[in-house]
C-alpha cells in the first residue's frame, strides 16, 4: 500500500463527483467488486498505472483513478473500494454505492472471482438493480481452470442480461474483450439486466412506496432500487440521498430485520440459482492441496512454529544477503566522496560550505543509502511474496485468539504486519478495522513492531554484539536475536492493547469476520518490480528527503560551539544522567531525539557525537563500527537497550503526522507518542537495573 492518495468516506465522493469529467465525451467507467477478486490487478492492467495490490480484505481503501485508450477513444477508470455488498454500512461500501448511484458512471464493471462466483454474484445482482449499464468481468479464469471449475460465460451473460467477459488479469488474458464490451455498453448497447424476484410481501411494499418516489427531483436513481432501500429502512442511504438531492423523501416502511432478511435472502437465492446453471465443478478434482497447506499452516502443533520459522528465515536472508552489497555501496560512496573532495571549486568557497555539504549532507545520505537500501531490497520483496501468496490472513487467523484476549480486533494482526514495512502504512491500514475503539488500539500500538527504518539498527547491532562468530552461524544468531526482538514487540503490542483496553479505551471486542482468500501463485517478476518501486524506493526516497536536511542540521549542531563544546555534545551532556540510568548514554538519547524525522539516522548521529569530529564517520565495515562503539563504552547491555529503545520509542515524524490525519486528534497523537516512549524507557530502566543487580555488567 502506498502512502499516496489515501482518503475514504464521503469526502472522496464529493471530490469524485465534482472532479471535471475529463476530456469532452470521455466515458467514466466504475470498477466495483468483492475484495480479493484481483480488481486492482484489472485496474493496473487496463491503465498501466502502478498501484499496490494485496491479498487481504479491504486492502484497497483508497479510490484510484486512471485512463486508458481503446478504439481511438479515451476512458476514465475509477477503482472503487472492494466490497461484498452495497447494502452494508462500512465507509468503503458507502463510497462504492454512492458512486455507482450518484456518480452516474457510463459503465460499471463488476469484477468477480471465477473460483468463488456464487458469493460474487450477490454484488453483481445488487449493482444490476441500480444500473443496467454493467459489464461483468469474471477474473481469475486460469485459477479456476486449475481448480477444475468451469464457467459458461455465454450462459452467464444470458442469465444476467449484460455482457460477461472472462479474464486472467495477471497474465493479461481477456482484457481486450473486456475493453470491447465496455466500449459497446458505453456506446449505448442495450442490456436486459436480470431482476431479483422478491417474496410477495417485499414486492407489495415496494409497489406501495414506488409511486411516492416519482416526483423526486434531481437524482436519476433507479426508483425500484430506492423503494427497496426505503422498505428495508437503510438509514445511511437515506442520509446520502438527502444530501445529494435536497429532496423530500416519503416516509419508508421501516421493515427492520424481517424485510431486510427477506431481501438479502432473495438475492442470495437468485445468485445460487444462476451459479448452479453456469458453473460446473468437474467430478474428479483431486486432493485439495490448498486445504492441506492451510491445515498445516494453522495446525495446533505447527501453526505458530511455522510462522516463526518463516519470519526467522526472512530475517536471516536479509541479514545474510545485505552484508556484501552494503559494503560495496559504502565503498562506492567513499570513492565518490574523495572524488568530490578533490574538486577544485571548494577552494573558491568558504571552508564551512564544504563541511556542510560533503561532511554533513553527503555523508548522511551515503550512510542512509548504503545501510538501508540492501536490507530493504531483500526484505520488501520477501515480505511482498508472503503477502501475494495470501499468507497474511492466515497469520491473522493464527493470532486472532491472542488479540481477542487483549480485547483487540483480529485484523490488528494484519495492520501489525503492515507495520513491519512502514508504521505510517500500518497506521493507514488500520482503516480495515471498523470499530473506532479497536482501530485506535491498533493505531497506538502499531509502532511496537519495528519498521524498515528501524530494522537496520536491530540487524546491525545484532550482527555486531550477538552474532559474534560472524559468517553463516553468526548471522543465524543475529537473525535469532532480531526475531526475539520482534517477538518482544508483538508481546508488548498485545500487553499494551490490553492495558489500554482496560483503561482509556474500554470496551468489548467487536465481531471478527475475516475472509481467507485462496493461496495464489505469486508472480515473482511483478513482485520484484512492485516491491522495489512501490515500497523500497518510496521508503528510501522518504529517508533521503529527511536525511539530507537532517545531515545539514546535525553537522551544524556538531560544529556550532556552546560553552566550549559543540551543541551536540552539550545536549548529550545534559542527557547523560538519564542515559546512564537506562543503561545507555547521553549521546544515544540525543541521537534518538534527533532521529525523530527518520530512525535511520539514529546510529550515524551517535557515532558522530562519539568521534567528536563534527562529521559523520563512515565505518567501512561492521568491525570498524564495533571498534567505535566499544571504545565508547558499549557493552552487550548497551546494545540490548538500544535495541529495546529502537523497538519502543515515539513514532517517527511521518507516522505521527499520519496518526494525526487518521485520528483527526492531536490528543490521540500525543497518546501514540507517549505510550511507546514510556514503555521503552521503562524497559531500559528495568533491564539496566536487573543487569547491575545481578552483576552481569
Amino acid at each position, binding site marked *: 500500500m502506498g502512502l499516496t492518495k489515501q482518503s475514504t468516506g464521503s469526502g472522496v465522493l464529493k471530490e469524485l463527483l465534482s472532479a471535471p469529467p475529463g476530456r469532452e465525451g470521455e466515458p467514466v467507467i466504475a470498477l466495483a467488486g468483492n475484495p480479493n477478486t484481483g480488481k486492482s490487478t484489472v485496474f493496473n492492467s487496463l491503465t498501466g498505472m502502478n498501484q499496490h495490490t494485496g491479498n487481504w480484505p479491504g486492502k484497497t481503501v483508497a479510490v484510484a483513478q486512471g485512463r486508458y485508450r481503446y478504439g481511438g477513444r479515451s476512458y476514465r477508470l475509477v477503482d472503487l473500494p472492494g466490497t461484498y455488498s452495497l447494502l452494508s454500512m462500512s465507509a468503503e461500501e458507502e463510497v462504492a454505492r454512492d458512486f455507482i448511484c450518484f456518480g452516474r458512471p457510463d459503465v460499471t464493471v463488476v469484477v468477480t472471482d471465477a473460483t468463488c*462466483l456464487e458469493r460474487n454474484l450477490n454484488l453483481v445482482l445488487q449493482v444490476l438493480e441500480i444500473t443496467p449499464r454493467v459489464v461483468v468481468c469474471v477474473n481469475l479464469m486460469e485459477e479456476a481452470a486449475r481448480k477444475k471449475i468451469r464457467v459458461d460465460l455465454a450462459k452467464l451473460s444470458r442469465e444476467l442480461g449484460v455482457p460477461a467477459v472472462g479474464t486472467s488479469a495477471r497474465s493479461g488474458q481477456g482484457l481486450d474483450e473486456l475493453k470491447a464490451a465496455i466500449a459497446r455498453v458505453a456506446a449505448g448497447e442495450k442490456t436486459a439486466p436480470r431482476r431479483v424476484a422478491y417474496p410477495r410481501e417485499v414486492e407489495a411494499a415496494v409497489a406501495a412506496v414506488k409511486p411516492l418516489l416519482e416526483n423526486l427531483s434531481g437524482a436519476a436513481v433507479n426508483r425500484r432500487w430506492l423503494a427497496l432501500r426505503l422498505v428495508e429502512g437503510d438509514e445511511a442511504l437515506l442520509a446520502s440521498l438527502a444530501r445529494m438531492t435536497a429532496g423530500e423523501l416519503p416516509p419508508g416502511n421501516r421493515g427492520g430485520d424481517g424485510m*431486510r432478511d427477506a431481501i*438479502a435472502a432473495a438475492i442470495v437465492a437468485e445468485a445460487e440459482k444462476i451459479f448452479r446453471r453456469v458453473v460446473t465443478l468437474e467430478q474428479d478434482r483431486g486432493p485439495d492441496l490448498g486445504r492441506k497447506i*492451510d491445515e498445516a499452516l*494453522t495446525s495446533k502443533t505447527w501453526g505458530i512454529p511455522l510462522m516463526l520459522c518463516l519470519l526467522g528465515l526472512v530475517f536471516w536472508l536479509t541479514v545474510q544477503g545485505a552484508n556484501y552489497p552494503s559494503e560495496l555501496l559504502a565503498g562506492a560512496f567513499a570513492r565518490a566522496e574523495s572524488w568530490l573532495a578533490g574538486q577544485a571549486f571548494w577552494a573558491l568557497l568558504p571552508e564551512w560550505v564544504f563541511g556542510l555539504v560533503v561532511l554533513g549532507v553527503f555523508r548522511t545520505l551515503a550512510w542512509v543509502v548504503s545501510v538501508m537500501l540492501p536490507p530493504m531490497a531483500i526484505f520488501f520483496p520477501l515480505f511482498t511474496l508472503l503477502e501475494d501468496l495470501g499468507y497474511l490472513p492466515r497469520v491473522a487467523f493464527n493470532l486472532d485468539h491472542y488479540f*481477542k484476549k487483549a480485547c483487540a480486533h483480529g485484523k490488528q494482526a494484519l495492520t501489525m504486519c503492515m507495520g513491519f514495512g512502514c508504521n505510517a502504512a500500518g497506521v493507514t491500514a488500520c482503516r480495515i478495522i*471498523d470499530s473506532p475503539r479497536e482501530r485506535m488500539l491498533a493505531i497506538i500500538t502499531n509502532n511496537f513492531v519495528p519498521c524498515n527504518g528501524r530494522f537496520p539498527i536491530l540487524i546491525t547491532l545484532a550482527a555486531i554484539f550477538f552474532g559474534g562468530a560472524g559468517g553463516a552461524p553468526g548471522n543465524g544468531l543475529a537473525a535469532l536475536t532480531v526475531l526475539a526482538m520482534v517477538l518482544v514487540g508483538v508481546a508488548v503490542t498485545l500487553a499494551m492493547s490490553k492495558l489500554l483496553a482496560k483503561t482509556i479505551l474500554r470496551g468489548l*471486542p467487536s465481531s471478527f469476520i475475516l*475472509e481467507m482468500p485462496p493461496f495464489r501463485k505469486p508472480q515473482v517478476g511483478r513482485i520484484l518490480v512492485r516491491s522495489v518501486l512501490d515500497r523500497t524506493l518510496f521508503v528510501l526516497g522518504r529517508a533521503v528527503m529527511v536525511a539530507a536536511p537532517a545531515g545539514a542540521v546535525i553537522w551544524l549542531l556538531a560544529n556550532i560551539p556552546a560553552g566550549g563544546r559543540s551543541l551536540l555534545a552539550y545536549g548529550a551532556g545534559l542527557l547523560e544522567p538519564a542515559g546512564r540510568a537506562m543503561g545507555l548514554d547521553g549521546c544515544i538519547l540525543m541521537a534518538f531525539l534527533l532521529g525523530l524525522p527518520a530512525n535511520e539516522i539514529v546510529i550515524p548521529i551517535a557515532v558522530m557525537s562519539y568521534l567528536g569530529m563534527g562529521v559523520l564517520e563512515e565505518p567501512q565495515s561492521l568491525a570498524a563500527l564495533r571498534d567505535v562503539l566499544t571504545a565508547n563504552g558499549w557493552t552487550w547491555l548497551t546494545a540490548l537497550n538500544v535495541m529495546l529503545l529502537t523497538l519502543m520509542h515515539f513514532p517517527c515524524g511521518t507516522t505521527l503526522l499520519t496518526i494525526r490525519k487518521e485520528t483527526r486528534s492531536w490528543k490521540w497523537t500525543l497518546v501514540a507518542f507517549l505510550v511507546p516512549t514510556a514503555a521503552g524507557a521503562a524497559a531500559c530502566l528495568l533491564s539496566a537495573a536487573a543487569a547491575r543487580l545481578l552483576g552481569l555488567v
Partner: protein
Amino acid sequence: MKFQQIPLCALPLGGAGIVRELAVSGATRRRMLDLGLVQGTRVEAVLRSPAGDPKAYRVRGALIALRSEEAGQILVEYPK
C-alpha cells in the same frame, strides 16, 4: 437420519450443517447475510486456529473465519 440444532462453533472439523437461524442483529447480521449466510446455506467447518478459536468455515465457495462469539449465534442443523 435424525437432526439436531447446534451452534455453528460446535460443528466438528470436516462436518457440515445447514443454517437455520441467525441470532444476531444489526451490522454483524448484515455482514453475515452479505457473505451468503442465509437460512438453508450449507456450511462446512474447515480449519481450526492453533488456539482452537477462531475457526474457518466454507460458505458458498469462500473460506470465512469466525470467532466463537459470532459462530455461536448461528444455529445449524447437523445430523445426529
